[in-house]
């Protein structure tokens, strides 16, 4: 055997060398375009970079000025409000829809397929439809309510702060329900029906069956699904950018849209990076929560590790 052949042989039989080789393309892509920019973003937050001018280190000046910036604090408040309300609604309605779909109903697979549509189509494009539905002059919701005699003038959905907040939350919930419902449905389908039969023989009411069988068995998957949902709602950008651009009076600006506005059209890259960086602590908290959620799942199934 020549030395080259022996080398080839060694490579083909070593898990460590092969592992590194197989991992190389994915690792290269992620290190260059994910890990490095993550670090770079952190660094940018401590500089005075603008578009067209590389900045110098200026310490925590960006964060100090953000701390005095009422628009920034408004966007933080909006982000938490948006995430909290939208997540609760998505969870409640999604769980309800999942429970309905888990019943013995006609056209079950067709219904399941159709319901996922809002989640499949590009968010930006469905957001435009919502923008049109919320139009101040031609809103179909206003038209219907007027016809029913419930209101006497058209609602200015996107013109008043709280109405605008409610409107974008409704659009976000609309888009998020299918994901929650279909994931929870998959979880529901793993629960053995014999558990329900046994409970019924013991005289458990439907609420008791939900509370003592469905809920505990579904908790692990709920933890994971809601972590995903919370993270992607917290960092949402598209819906707000399309429907309100942060208005009226910054009432719907989220941290992501404010970061974009300051960094790209405004040119203040460093300030935008600082705003985006301010989201990281919350994301870390959510990821830790997810990690312990997964741990609990393994423990509940009698496993020892995650």
């Amino acid at each position, binding site marked *: 055997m020549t030395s080259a052949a022996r080398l080839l042989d060694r490579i083909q039989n070593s898990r460590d060398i092969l592992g590194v080789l197989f991992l190389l393309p994915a690792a290269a892509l992620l290190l260059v375009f994910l890990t490095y920019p993550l670090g770079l973003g952190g660094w940018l937050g401590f500089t005075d970079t603008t578009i067209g001018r590389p900045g110098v280190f200026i310490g925590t000046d960006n964060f100090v000025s953000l701390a005095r910036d009422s628009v920034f604090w408004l966007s933080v408040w909006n982000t938490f409000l948006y995430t909290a309300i939208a997540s609760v609604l998505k969870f409640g309605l999604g769980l309800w829809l999942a429970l309905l*779909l888990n019943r013995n109903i006609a056209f079950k697979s067709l219904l399941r397929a159709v319901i996922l549509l809002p989640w499949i189509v*590009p968010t930006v494009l469905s957001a435009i439809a919502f923008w049109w539905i919320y139009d101040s002059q031609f809103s179909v919701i206003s038209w219907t309510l007027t016809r029913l005699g419930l209101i006497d003038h058209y609602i200015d959905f996107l013109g008043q702060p709280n109405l605008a907040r409610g409107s974008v939350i409704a659009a976000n919930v609309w888009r998020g329900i299918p994901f929650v419902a279909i994931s929870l449905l998959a979880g529901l389908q793993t629960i053995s029906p014999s558990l329900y039969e046994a409970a019924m023989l013991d005289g458990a009411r439907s609420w008791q069956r939900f509370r003592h069988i469905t809920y505990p068995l579904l908790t692990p998957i709920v933890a994971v699904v809601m972590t995903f949902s919370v993270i992607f709602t917290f960092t949402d*950008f598209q819906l707000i950018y399309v429907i309100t651009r942060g208005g009226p009076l910054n009432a719907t600006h989220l941290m992501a849209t404010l970061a974009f506005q300051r960094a790209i059209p405004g040119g203040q890259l460093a300030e935008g990076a600082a705003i985006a960086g301010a989201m990281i602590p919350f994301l870390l908290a959510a990821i830790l929560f997810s990690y312990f959620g997964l741990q609990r799942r393994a423990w509940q199934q009698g496993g020892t590790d995650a």
Partner: protein
Amino acid sequence: MRSAAADASGTDYLESLPRKLVTVYLPLGVFLFVLLFPFYWMAMTTVKPNAELYDYKTYSPFWVVHPTLDHVKKLLFDTSYPSWLWNTVLVSVSSTAISLVASALAAYAIERLRFRGSRYVGMGIFLAYLVPPSILFIPLATMVFRLGLFDTRLALILTYPTFLVPFCTWLLMGYFRTIPYELEECALIDGATRWQILTRIVLPLAVPGLISAGIFAFTLSWNEFIYALTFVSSSEVKTVPVGVITELVEGDVYHWGSLMAGALLGSLPVAVLYSFFVEYYVSGLTGAVKE
């Protein structure tokens, strides 16, 4: 053997039909109406002539009297919409292909080669999945600019894998886990190399997983917005979501007809793909959520 799903509602016969109508079909109908209404509204607006679109007094907004394809025609012949569609296809297909190859190799390495530290790499991939584009786009924009990739399709093709690779790898790891070890051991004893095992045994068995990951990655790239909005500025290289929102909205006058036509046409490709592969989507979605 009956699956758990098939008889999940084994005790349903105990419930009377009228009661079921109110507790199941009524709320289900409301859900369905709300979830599908925006699509109906998109389609309705697309085919309505302007005269009907802005006159609710004489025409009901829910119906169209004289359907027209004017808005679609305007979109296809008077705007750059066809080139946005082409760009979106090009970028989505390329980034999906790159991500699938990289992910299949990585998932096999993590799940089956079990090299030293593979567990931590797996964890890292999961964490990478949780890094949202909205905190990456600013530093990525500066990188794209320095690399001279600003305003090119390549910028998008190279950055989309940041969210596609973690997702596909995670999904494929789950699929590879279901392939019996014994098959690989047999092949190893027969003298197959790891590369042969991957290409001749594992990948053919993982085709459903590859399809799931592929169509999901394609959909995610098709729907991507923030990177495309930031890294591209000329009309010729824009993708559909960015083109519709930046170029069809002119000043204060919104051409709702062509906007809705743009939204509808841009949604159709993924909706059609989805209708062919519903089961793969569902398994992709739930596979990504389960560990």
